[in-house]
């Protein structure tokens, strides 16, 4: 099948490759709704990893029932207030052929969706920026990016849940806690969550 390729991952896992992050989100949602037998269902940029799978044949049968046009249920919408004071705001403005206000307007106009988490607990890769707005990562990552920093890399947008080194271009910051292990839903931006940024 063209829309789905299963790649081997050892005796207890399989990596399902699909066309893009929307398809990965759709497949992950489909598999969870079908009560897939797997410890972990991990969407990626163009893949879904099924790990801790007791029966790989059974899993292959289940994912074969998925079609790429299966629209997942829209996730909850989260609004994130942002102070647009990032160190790379002017740099991004230049790349986008606009000024700082233009960046704020364009960034705020996009409804992003959390495709997958990685890099750090609760760090969501947010899809939605048009391809012609992609920006390269910094050639040299910063040693320390503060928690709450809102940044771009490629067409991804992300918010740092905790302070860490990082190479994303920073637009601003938010005080919203992205990650709290004591909450019943520890990650604010779990895969599937829709996100809007609101200038404050």
């Amino acid at each position, binding site marked *: 099948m063209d829309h789905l390729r299963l*790649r*081997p*991952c*050892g*005796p*207890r*896992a399989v*990596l399902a*490759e699909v066309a893009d992050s929307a398809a990965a989100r759709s497949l*992950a949602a489909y598999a969870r709704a079908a009560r897939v037998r797997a*410890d*972990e*269902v*991990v*969407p*990626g*940029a*163009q*893949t*879904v*990893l099924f*790990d*801790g799978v007791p029966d790989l044949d059974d899993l292959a049968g289940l994912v074969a029932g998925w079609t790429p046009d299966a629209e997942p249920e829209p996730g909850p919408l989260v609004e994130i207030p942002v102070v647009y004071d990032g160190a790379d705001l002017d740099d991004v403005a230049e790349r986008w052929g606009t000024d700082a206000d233009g960046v704020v307007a364009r960034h705020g106009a996009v409804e992003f969706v959390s495709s*997958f*988490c*990685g*890099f*750090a*607990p*609760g*760090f969501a*890769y947010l899809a939605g920026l048009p391809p012609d707005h992609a920006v390269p990562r910094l050639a040299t990552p910063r040693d320390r990016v503060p928690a709450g920093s809102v940044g771009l890399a490629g067409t991804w947008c992300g918010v740092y849940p*905790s302070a860490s080194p990082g190479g994303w271009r920073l637009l601003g910051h938010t005080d919203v806690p992205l990650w709290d*292990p004591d909450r019943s839903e*520890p*990650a604010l931006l*779990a*895969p599937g969550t829709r996100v809007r940024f609101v200038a404050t």
Partner: protein
Amino acid sequence: MSLHVASAGALTTVQDRGRRGLAHLGVPRAGPLDRPAAELANRLVGNGPDSALLEVTWGGLDVTADAGLWVAVTGAPVPVDVDGTERGRDRAEWLPAGATLRLGPPPVGVRSYLAVAGGLDVRPVLGSRSTDTLAWVGPPQVRDGAVLPTGAPAGPPAPLDTPRPPTPGPLRVTPGPRADWFTPGALDRLCATAYAVGAASNRVGLRLEGEPVERVRHEELPSEGMVLGAVQVPPDGQPVVLLADHPPTGGYPVLAVVHPDDLWQCAQLRPGEQLRFIRGV
């Protein structure tokens, strides 16, 4: 009841079976690196497999208990004594109230496990008492002076004939999800030479040094989910075997996957020691 840590050694962490079902939020699973050794320690003191114990790196642990309890030390064969009197490994030993249990440096291997009857009853985080050293989810690293509460013993200690951990050998590998990103025969060449364990190896990954693995595709891999035991190849061609605290997603292609039953050996290999891979099924 509690365990008082006088000296925590180089790196001591609390571990149970690890966190499951949270990889999609970016949370590593953690858990003991030498799983058979940790399971043995728990069985020896009569604990269930979910009990939390200590993973001790390079020995150097001194603890006392405020009430007598059964303990067991497994994994890297550290010298064990109680108030200066030698005690055995891989068996239950009685630690009297107030006595000091000491784990010396291991002559071979890296990680030892100390289980106490009833397990360590530290506060779970996201359903697990394991400490993940990548993002530091879970209980804090055990430091000098730490006081760790212990649970109520579930049953008597086990007899001495509990099965021992498996014997070492080449790590069995099967082709990984991105084997086609490498030159034909790359997996056979991985298995044909020995790799040395790098000094930067830790609970996140075993970093290997040896013949570089050559890629045929050089573009950036879009981030994808990673499994425990994935043999990931960064641009320098030096493979890394992902271990318990690995990031749940990564951007380097995976050539091969180590069989889960062989991964315990990665816990005990020292920097400079060699390992080999072998094609498995």
